[in-house]
């Protein structure tokens, strides 16, 4: 037994020595391996070592195909890869871009565009009027992007007269048509045709190359696709033959759009480790303040034509009474909300964001419980308002909104209006809003202008054709308002159209279908070594979704 124990003891010592040697070797090996690595690695693709890279936080999915993507995440990438027919200026006017000039027929139904010569697609082909007509027809046929809701109600046909001229014929006069063309991104017709798959849902055009366009581009913009890995990143690189130039001296040579939204802590770590240059715009005030306090990172903002609304369902009692709606509008403590919850935004002054040309300051509601009580007394529900429970549905995906909803509920309770807060996920939100009977009393939503035109934003927000969509939880169905909006939309002359837009804003303010909370700003955390002109000088900001991210104007000087 003794011998056994001794043998065992020797074996144990030997084993322990071997184990220690192996452990030390592993630790030393790992240490050297780690210390010989370069800078902190990051998610996404591997950029070219000599590249000036900017990694931009974004949401996913990103549909780079201009006939499909119409959300912020997609547009942010699209404006860097494609060229629009016309270009929006910071002051809301429209400038020539792919279209060098244009003429409009006297009846406002025929638009003829002269196409700029010498624009090269990323493939090296020359952009012609045939590509422009093809791009519009593709959008109209596919229908899921802007083609469906923006152009199909108005555009009769699009055809190329020759290589340099394209003509659009409208079904009816549409004053903002020219401005809407900032969303018409031109695709390389031959490239698309070379990649269609048949059979597909679009007849002779098969799938219209929608499958191929998921991971490729057919554009002529300042950046071209290097690699797209769905759900992971969109990696683009500078297009050296870009016709318009305009690259800043230290403009990024590569841009990577990374989906970062779901976990704030992940995005925080990425910013701190300098794995992300520009954050996404969906972070809370606390997150942004925290980032701003970090060395080398700043919180930046620029205007965006979007507004946050409380939409009051005018078809559900007691909100079918304008006085109850007005009472609620007077109940909301706007100043407290802006100071404590949303200091990064500005209080709304109209039913349109003030950065949209044509918006007028017509806000007539402020926090005033005396007036709220007076309005309530005028309503037919004055005697029995306590019998009603007003449901206010808030999306849990945006936790901040529960705070301002609670603010309204607590103030409304002071005048006897009972508001019950209900947490409703986004998917259910879309479903219940589609019917006036299931649409809650109050829903809240931030809505942006699709292009810089006030009349069209009023159309998508308040026209009866919008009822049932997430843009309109008010279910107004007001023939008077419809007629006013249609009249404004059909007015070609801009100043006349804006005059009508002003009257509509005052009318809406008076019937109070909505409580107007704040004008949206794009607020993001940015590394100090990235210079973004539209953040530094708001007068250079183009307040339209997507156009806030013109990467060729940025400068990158990594430390």
């Amino acid at each position: 037994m003794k011998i056994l124990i001794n043998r065992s003891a020797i074996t144990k010592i030997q084993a322990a020595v071997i184990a220690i040697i192996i452990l030390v070797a592993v630790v030393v090996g790992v240490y050297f391996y780690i210390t010989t690595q370069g800078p902190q690695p990051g998610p996404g693709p591997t950029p070219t070592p000599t590249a000036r890279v900017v990694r931009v936080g974004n949401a996913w999915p990103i549909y780079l195909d201009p006939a499909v993507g119409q959300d912020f995440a997609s547009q942010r990438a699209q404006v860097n890869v494609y060229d629009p027919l016309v270009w929006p200026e910071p002051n809301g006017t429209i400038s020539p871009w792919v279209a060098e000039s244009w003429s409009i027929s006297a009846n406002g139904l025929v638009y003829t565009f002269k196409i700029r010569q010498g624009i090269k697609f990323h493939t090296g082909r020359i952009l012609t009027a045939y590509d422009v007509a093809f791009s519009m027809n593709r959008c109209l046929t596919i229908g899921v992007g802007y083609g469906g809701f923006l152009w199909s109600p108005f555009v009769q046909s699009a055809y190329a007269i020759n290589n340099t001229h394209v003509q659009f014929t409208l079904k009816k006069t549409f004053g903002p048509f020219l401005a809407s063309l900032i969303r018409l991104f031109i695709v390389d017709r031959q490239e698309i045709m070379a990649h269609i798959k048949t059979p597909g849902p679009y007849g002779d055009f098969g799938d219209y190359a929608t499958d191929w366009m998921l991971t490729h581009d057919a554009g002529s913009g300042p950046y071209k696709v290097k690699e797209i890995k769905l759900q992971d990143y969109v990696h683009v690189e500078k297009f050296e033959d870009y016709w318009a130039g305009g690259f800043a001296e230290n403009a990024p040579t590569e841009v990577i759009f990374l989906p970062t939204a779901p976990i704030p802590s992940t995005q925080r770590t990425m910013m701190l480790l300098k794995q992300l240059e520009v954050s996404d715009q969906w972070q809370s005030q606390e997150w942004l303040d925290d980032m701003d306090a970090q060395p080398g990172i700043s919180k930046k903002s620029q205007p965006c034509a979007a507004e946050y609304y409380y939409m009051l369902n005018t078809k559900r009692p007691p909100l079918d009474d304008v006085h109850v709606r007005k009472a609620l509008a007077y109940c909301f403590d706007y100043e407290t909300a802006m100071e404590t919850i949303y200091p990064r935004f500005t209080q709304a002054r109209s039913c349109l964001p003030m950065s949209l040309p044509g918006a007028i300051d017509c806000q007539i509601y402020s926090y005033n419980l005396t007036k709220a009580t007076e309005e309530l007394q005028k309503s037919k529900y004055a005697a029995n308002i306590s019998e009603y429970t007003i449901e206010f549905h808030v999306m849990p995906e945006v936790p901040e909104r529960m705070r301002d909803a609670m603010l309204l509920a607590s103030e409304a309770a002071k005048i006897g209006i009972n508001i019950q807060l209900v947490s409703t996920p986004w998917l259910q939100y879309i479903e219940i809003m589609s019917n006036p009977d299931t649409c809650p009393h109050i829903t809240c939503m931030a809505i942006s202008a699709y292009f810089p035109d006030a009349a069209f934003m009023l159309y998508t927000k308040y026209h009866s054709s919008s009822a049932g969509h997430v843009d309109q939880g008010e279910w107004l169905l007001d023939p008077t308002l419809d007629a006013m909006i249609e009249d404004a939309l059909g007015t070609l002359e801009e100043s006349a159209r804006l005059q009508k837009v002003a009257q509509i804003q005052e009318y809406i303010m008076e019937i109070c279908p909505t409580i107007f909370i704040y004008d949206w700003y794009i607020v993001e955390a940015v590394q100090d070594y990235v210079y973004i002109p539209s953040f530094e000088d708001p007068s250079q900001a183009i307040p339209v979704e997507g156009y806030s991210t013109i990467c060729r104007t940025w400068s990158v000087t990594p430390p």
Partner: protein
Amino acid sequence: MRLSTYIAKRAVYIIFSLIGLSILVFVLARVLPGDPARMAAGERAPEWVVEQLRKQLKLDRPLYEQYFYWVTNLLRGDLGYSIVSRRSVTVDVLEYLPASLELIGLAAIFQITGALILGAIAGYFSYKWPDNLLRIFSYIGVSIPAFVVGILLQLIFAWWLKIFPAQGVLSPGVSRPPRVTGMYTIDSLIAGRFDTFLDVLWHMVLPALALSIGSMMQDARIIRSGMVENKDKEYILLARSQGMPERLVMFKYLFKPSIIPAVTVMGLDAAALLANAFLVETVYYWPGFSKLGITLMLNKDLNAIVALVLVIGIIYAIANVIVDVIVAYLDPRIRFVETGE
């Protein structure tokens, strides 16, 4: 019953389970709120576009007909069209599943080896300080969700100590190996790039650890309980009284029978790692199947949701069979009980 007969019988059970699962998930996915055609077309799309999509996706057909189409396509290897990625779900599964599998593979190794070592230590030193310490860590490990552990590990090891990367699969300057299996580690070895292999492993450590800690602690507790229970059994006393070396008693007579209950749980826990990886993959920016799953579910991507659950179900079923076989191998009584022999 012979082991091969036993395995065949289990395989038949699996087929029926998967058919049942597919019907259940297919129906459940379709009663969730939200119109998938509307989601696919966009909130502002006109009704004709939504209708067109509804027909294209066959959502205008009765439920049983939809299921029939789905099964027919499934037998051809087509899991249907994803409204989010806008391509075949089969392509998405093939693209993203391998990365998840290698992550949960490493997590399973951590989980099983960690559980065996910690469980054995706690069981051997029962009611002493190593056991008490493990008990405290077990409660913490089991009660904290994997994604919270992930964030904590990220904070400590990536941000403060800077010894592991915070996210991603590869370091800057390291290019992706040519895709063969879709698993970064295997593809690196196939390409003969050992440095890339090490780099991927280095990136996998934190997410795999975050994924494995909860089940590792739970399994360790089960092993420890088994050992404590068996420790005072007569055959152990007999072995010790006969002067058998303690190492032999410990590993051959005490440890082996004590891990049988834990093997079942460990196997199922390992399979469940894929389902648990949803948020961990998001936190670590791991380009896997689970990260994709979150987006698909939030967008009510019917075909993709069904495919996702089915894939997890298949992995679970396979793990179940493997566990049954191992247990039957370790303890032949189980095979005989099934047939009443």
